[in-house]
């Protein structure tokens, strides 16, 4: 993909270039500077965690080893997060795509009502949902299960997924689908072979959003699970403590934050490539 606006100006191409690069640099710095602080804090020795020096002196990986101390069970927590976030993402895409397709492509009554109800569920403060849910899940024996974390995460992301996918599906020309069906495709085939590839940017963006939302979910995962083997990474981080009393292990928490964030960025990058790949395969050159 080339920049849509890049090859424009005849007058001062180089100036624009400079501006573009300065803009890019500013945006990247804005995003990275606090993250840089996080990384640097993670690499300080625990007893140096209050330093404001721009670089750790001396460097130390003590915080990282503390994260993976045997008693903490952080590897398992990462795995749990992966299971919960992965399943949530797949379910969101599956369920959300169906719903969005219906909303974008089919004609039926109450369409706006459905859209309205869907988004209305994103309007209630999430913290007020916990106790009723806890009661419900306790009654049906779902405490300490993956579904007790997946289902709420699913419901938190579904409204956005449905609305977003609906918008993308709606932007695609109807004629293509109709043409395909005239050519003998079933509606399902037309959907799978034509709509989905064209809507790839929307689908993968939704996937990224769902994955990150589920990966970072905290309060439900904390409330619905009390077994260490079942806890997710964010919950595990909240349980980090220093050696004594009020000692807050900031460095260790930041190290865990780095560990939790890096795979996420990798996942995002892979999906990002798919957005581009999806389009290229789609033939916009």
């Amino acid at each position, binding site marked *: 993909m080339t920049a849509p606006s890049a090859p424009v100006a005849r007058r001062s191409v180089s100036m624009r270039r400079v501006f573009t690069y300065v803009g890019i640099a500013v945006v990247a710095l804005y995003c990275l500077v606090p993250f840089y602080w996080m990384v640097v804090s993670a690499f300080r020795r625990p007893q140096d965690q209050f330093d404001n020096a721009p670089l750790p002196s001396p460097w130390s990986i003590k915080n990282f080893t503390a994260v993976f101390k045997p008693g903490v069970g952080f590897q398992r927590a990462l795995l749990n997060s992966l299971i919960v976030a992965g399943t949530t993402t797949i379910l969101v895409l599956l369920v959300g795509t169906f719903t969005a397709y219906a909303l974008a492509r089919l004609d039926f009554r109450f369409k706006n009502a459905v859209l309205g109800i869907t988004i209305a569920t994103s309007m209630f403060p999430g913290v007020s949902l916990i106790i009723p849910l806890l*009661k419900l899940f306790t009654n049906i024996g779902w405490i300490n299960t993956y579904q007790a974390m997946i289902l709420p995460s699913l419901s938190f992301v579904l409204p956005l997924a449905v609305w977003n996918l609906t918008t993308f599906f709606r932007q695609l020309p109807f004629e293509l689908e109709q043409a395909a069906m005239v050519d003998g495709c079933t509606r399902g085939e037309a959907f799978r072979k034509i709509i989905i590839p064209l809507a790839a940017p929307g689908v993968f963006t939704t996937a990224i959003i769902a994955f990150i939302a589920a990966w970072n979910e905290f309060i439900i995962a904390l*409330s619905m699970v009390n077994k*260490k083997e079942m806890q997710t990474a964010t919950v595990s981080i909240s349980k980090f403590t*220093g*050696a*004594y*009393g009020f*000692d*807050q292990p900031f460095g260790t928490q930041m190290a865990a934050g780095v560990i939790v964030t890096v795979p996420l960025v990798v996942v995002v990058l892979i999906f990002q490539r798919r957005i581009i790949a999806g389009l290229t395969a789609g033939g916009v050159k």
Partner: protein
Amino acid sequence: MAGISRTVPAWSRGAIAIGAMAVVLAACGSGKTGSGSGDAAGRLSGRGPITLAQGKDTSGNVQNQVNTWNSRHPKEQVRLIELPEDADAQRQQMVQNAQTKSDAYTVLNLDVVWTSEFAANRWITPLPKAQFDLSKFLPPTVQTATYRDQLYAAPWKTDAGLLYYRTDLLKKAGISAPPKTWDEMKTDCGKVKGVNCYAGQFDKYEGLTCNFSEAVDSAGGVVVDDQGKPDVNTPQAKQGLDFLVQGFKSGLIPKEAITYQEEPARRAFEKGNLLFLRQWPYQWALSNKPGSSKVVGKFDVAPLPGLGGPGAPTLGGHNLAISAFAKNKATALDFISFLTSENTERANLLASSEAPTLASLYGDPELRKKFPYLPVLKASLLNAKPRPKAVRYGDVTAAIQEDAYAALTGKMTSDQALADLQNKLGQLIQP
């Protein structure tokens, strides 16, 4: 939200019966509820697997203790449930489980200020006093484990504020002993230049409640009197609050101390910016670690100073209680006895440096060698005052923080703040 049963559950009828009996006994003027608790003991039945819910096991020592127990009691295994590090989050999880009447948590590790709330809501079961030799515990810690003269928890870990001071700077200024009164402290600060005088924890959070109560108690006032009645609008309380208010105004207390919680305060002290600091014992070991601490070996602790003599620190700590909704309460009771035994508390102090509740350990030569502050801490603990015992403690501490913070930041005069606080506490605390 939380659906609360609109009928009285069966178990609570029993509790009401016990409560009624306690009242009868009290009416007879004995005030002792020994027999009442004996009754309660009969209800602690059932043996089998249980859980222990508490904040993160910092040293891993609790897990060791649990392992020891499990190897001895193969049919009564204990599982440790770690809750978040944040105290509010711990309470929230426990309340949620109580609201849903879940039996997930058996033994609860409660902050001392939660006892009344958990007891009055019948979320925890009364414990038989006979099971514990309460005379062995430091008396103030036992106070925090009772509600209306009934024992609801066993004291496990305790805490009290201490005065950290810079021995090197005092020595250089020719001062031989740490200050016992606020006036002495001010005089000492006059002699030492180049550092801030004093700080505590004055951000708007639970630490402010502790620091405010300490100031009031150390000036001879009370927040809540012995009968549990609020009595904070007094000249003594005003002197206490004014110590802090004037401290901020005069610069005795640095103005950034209004943002201090435990860790920023520790950092200021370790950077060498403070001559005196009110802090919990946990800082001792950390500030003595070479690294960014610039005060290694240059400080000591003393009891907090007060208006006319040594001050009265606020009591912190944790107690062990049994969830009313749990199964296997007999096992839970034995497990609590095990955790509060001398051997276990000793091992716990060595591993986590959390202060024990058993008085005998403070005289242990080996422990004294490792924790030189133990004698000072014991003296402080014996002089310590609990925070107000209130069923609605959350509202009480919020009210204290609101008015104390308003006074410290100059939004209210200390007279206004105390009058307002007295008024609010009167509505919140039922005698």
